[in-house]
């Protein structure tokens, strides 16, 4: 009973004559969880609302299981397209109890069946104790669970979640995201999540699309987005890192301030066709090594529990980031030995100096 695959085919959306979504295509397989990741105002929420049917398409089409539900000038009525939606502000009906909220979309279903479905979802989301409460009594996290249960109750073909965790405490977000993922997987529902928080996206989604100014920059899994970003913009948005200058000596070697990189030892790399390149260095590419001849001065450090994130300055003034186990506690201003250990080489043509 897995719900069908969702396919977007060159979808564009205009809002008051302004291009908001520009030719987006992707597919979420049946039962998969996709995430649209991007800064606020990038068009990701509009895209989600277009899939739901709240805004019309100005180009392309949306297919559910190969069946067209939206295209330019044609749109299946919202109530007939069987999409579930979880809103940013939860939008629970304040005049109904939790039980009535969850059962709202099931009013054509026989009472016994409806009660059974509500009970099933309440158990799944661990909100059985709240069924008779009114929404204003609930905490943000509880409202979130009810909103998800309500959206899933009519067994939608696709579930859309608009910034579902943004109104919650930071500590709650990732645990809830993982928990919700388990619930979605248990129900086998195809889902799309919109988020500006990459950790939420990593915790929940099978595949993530990075959206910027209405365009889908890359659609990939979290690991690949992080380690092999397709463009500078993706590299910039996903994860931490710095760009350092590199010089391509030949097809197998790149000269950098931190030493020569031998690409034959790297399993995964792409080198652009020019000599001067920019290399993306993630904090986990720069290792702390007291024996290393390359020294860098510590400019900033941030304690992250198990690790320290050091911001280091090379003699040339270039700054890099490095993760070190937290028992390697060095003071700011101290020099620290570092060496490169690059597993994925991400390089772009060198940017003209801005």
């Amino acid at each position, binding site marked *: 009973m897995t719900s069908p695959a969702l396919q977007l085919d060159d979808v564009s959306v205009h809002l008051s004559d302004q291009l908001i979504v520009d030719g987006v295509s992707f597919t979420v397989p049946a039962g998969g969880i996709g995430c649209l990741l991007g800064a606020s105002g990038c068009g990701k929420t509009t895209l989600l609302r277009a899939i739901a049917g709240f805004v019309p398409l100005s180009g392309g089409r949306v297919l559910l299981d190969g069946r067209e539900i939206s295209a330019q000038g044609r749109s299946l009525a919202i109530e007939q397209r069987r999409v579930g939606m979880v809103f940013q*502000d939860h939008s629970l009906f304040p005049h109904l109890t939790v039980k009535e909220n969850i059962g709202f979309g099931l009013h054509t279903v026989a009472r016994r069946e409806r009660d059974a479905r509500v009970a099933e979802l309440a158990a799944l989301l661990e909100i059985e104790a709240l069924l008779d409460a009114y929404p204003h009594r609930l905490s943000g996290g509880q409202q979130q669970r009810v909103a998800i249960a309500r959206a899933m109750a009519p067994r939608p073909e696709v579930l859309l979640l608009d910034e579902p965790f943004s109104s919650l405490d930071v500590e709650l977000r990732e645990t809830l995201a993982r928990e919700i993922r388990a619930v979605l997987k248990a129900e086998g529902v195809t889902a799309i999540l919109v988020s500006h928080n990459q950790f939420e996206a990593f915790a929940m989604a099978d595949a993530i699309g990075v959206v910027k100014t209405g365009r889908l920059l890359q659609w990939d899994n979290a690991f690949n987005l992080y380690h092999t970003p397709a463009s500078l913009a993706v590299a910039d948005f996903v994860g931490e890192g710095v760009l350092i200058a590199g010089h391509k000596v030949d097809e197998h070697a790149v000269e950098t301030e931190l030493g020569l990189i031998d690409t034959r030892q790297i399993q995964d790399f792409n080198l652009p066709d020019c000599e001067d390149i920019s290399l993306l260095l993630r904090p986990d590419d720069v290792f702390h090594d007291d024996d290393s001849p390359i020294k860098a001065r510590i400019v900033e450090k941030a304690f992250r529990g198990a690790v320290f994130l050091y911001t280091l300055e090379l003699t040339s003034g270039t700054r890099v980031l490095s993760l070190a186990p937290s028992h390697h506690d060095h003071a700011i201003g101290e020099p620290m030995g570092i060496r490169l250990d690059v597993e994925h080489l991400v390089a772009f043509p060198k940017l003209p100096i801005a």
Partner: protein
Amino acid sequence: MKVDTLPTSLKTRPSFEKIEAWPLSLLLLSLILATPILVVASSVFFPAGDIWEHLLDTVLTRYVKNSAALMLGVSIGVLALGILPAWLVSAYRFPGRAIFEWALLLPLAIPAYIIAYTYTGMLDVAGPLQSALRETFDWRYGDYWFPEIRSLGGAIAMLSLVFYPYVYLLCRAAFAEQSGSVMEAARSLGCTPRGAFVRVAMPLARPAIVVGLSIALMETLADYGTVQYFGLSTFTTGIYRTWNGLGSSVGAAQLAALLMCFVFVLVSLESASRRQSQFFNTGSRVRPGARVPLHGVELVGAYMACGLPVLFGFLVPFTQLAVWAGLTAETILTRDFFGYFLNSVTLAVITALAALALALFIAYGKRLYPSRSSTAASRVLGLGYALPGTVVAIGVLLPFAWLDNRLSAFLLARFDTNPGLLLSGTAFILVFAYLVRFLPIAMNTVEAGLGKIKPSMDEAGRSMGLRPAIMLRRIHMPMMRGSLVTALLLVFVDVMKELPATLLLRPFNFNTLAIRTYELANEERLADAAGPALAIVLASLIPVILLSLSLRPSAGALEEADIINKNSNTTGKES
């Protein structure tokens, strides 16, 4: 205390007398202004002789029946006229929508008694419509059936036409407050647009609808001019008749007490709904719902639903009044007319200024010394607006007459002069009664304005060593100038319109525009009544225009409800 950390030069010496004086005078003031309510309520403990038996035997059941029938009919009328247009202008897009949005409020500018006189003049046997019918079809009186305007049904129609805007306004505000995503949630859960309206938008607006309905019904109970003119025996006409015709003050007060019970039921209904509506707040207005365009039959229906109330509630009677006023201008615009006009304006100005001063005193006192007793005091004061003018008049007249008797006895004994009725025989008693009734409006408006000024402003002023009274003058009053003007205008207009209390309390031979309208109408000189009536309607347009301006999208929905909601007793602002 924070003050201790300030440099010595900035320290204000705590003045204990002041701290006590403000709440104490507030309490005293509320006690004085609450006298009418207390007098009317306590009248039930006095024997009224056989008058009560007489009332019971003859007319009381008729009063109750007529008032109840009127309330039922007006309920249906205002709900039918108010809810649908509110939904249409909130959820749909059609040419002229923005105009209807404020035009639907226009009937508020026409007092019930004036619309009743106008329609009677138009629809009566001798009126232009029936005359035209007779001429066209060569009928004679009695040959044909025509609905009798002077009837219960006619009164229900008249009152519904001018009171539906209360329901419309509160309902529209409720729809506007509903987060668009709540409706979208309903749609994504399988509701059609109509289904979403029935299952979500309407239930969410229900508390607001009940609030609007309660206000409309309070106005219905308070109406005297319409039912008197149509010859319907209701509580208000009964009170007047018992007082003037039967000369029984206690009997009239006891009738008023009974009417007050009806009013208090409405007041508690209203405040309960208001409390409930706080829970129905759908929270952050992430996105207002998108308006859906209307076409074809639906568009025609929308124009009917929005257009007919405006047409019959304002345009038709207003045009008729203007035509009559034009015809009778020569005989109407006499020195007498300007005398009435001046009387009305003088009374209205004095009352408005007094109400503003008291409202500032009370609202600012509550801000400076928030306490349970000051909240309770302002609640009691707020009850005044719910009281019908006849009830207030009886409640004011009884204690004033008693006081006057004492005063003249004292003066006679001491100075050997009898000055007559110093209080109850002068315009003083009118202003006092108006204050009882209309102070809540000023209080509400001033409190709303004051509430928008952050407490940190006070702290800033205090830290610079300003005393409260100076702070009020130099900080608060300039910042809330708009609210102060609004308060003045609202009270001014309500005094201009007021009929029953003025009728009972006015000094001998003292006439106002409202009284003159009433007198001329009762002499069946409806065309002549149009002049003063039109003057009242034009004045009443001012607050309606203010209200319309506040409907602009930038203004909060609550704000507009605040201005119209004159029942501060139930706003529950302290929560």
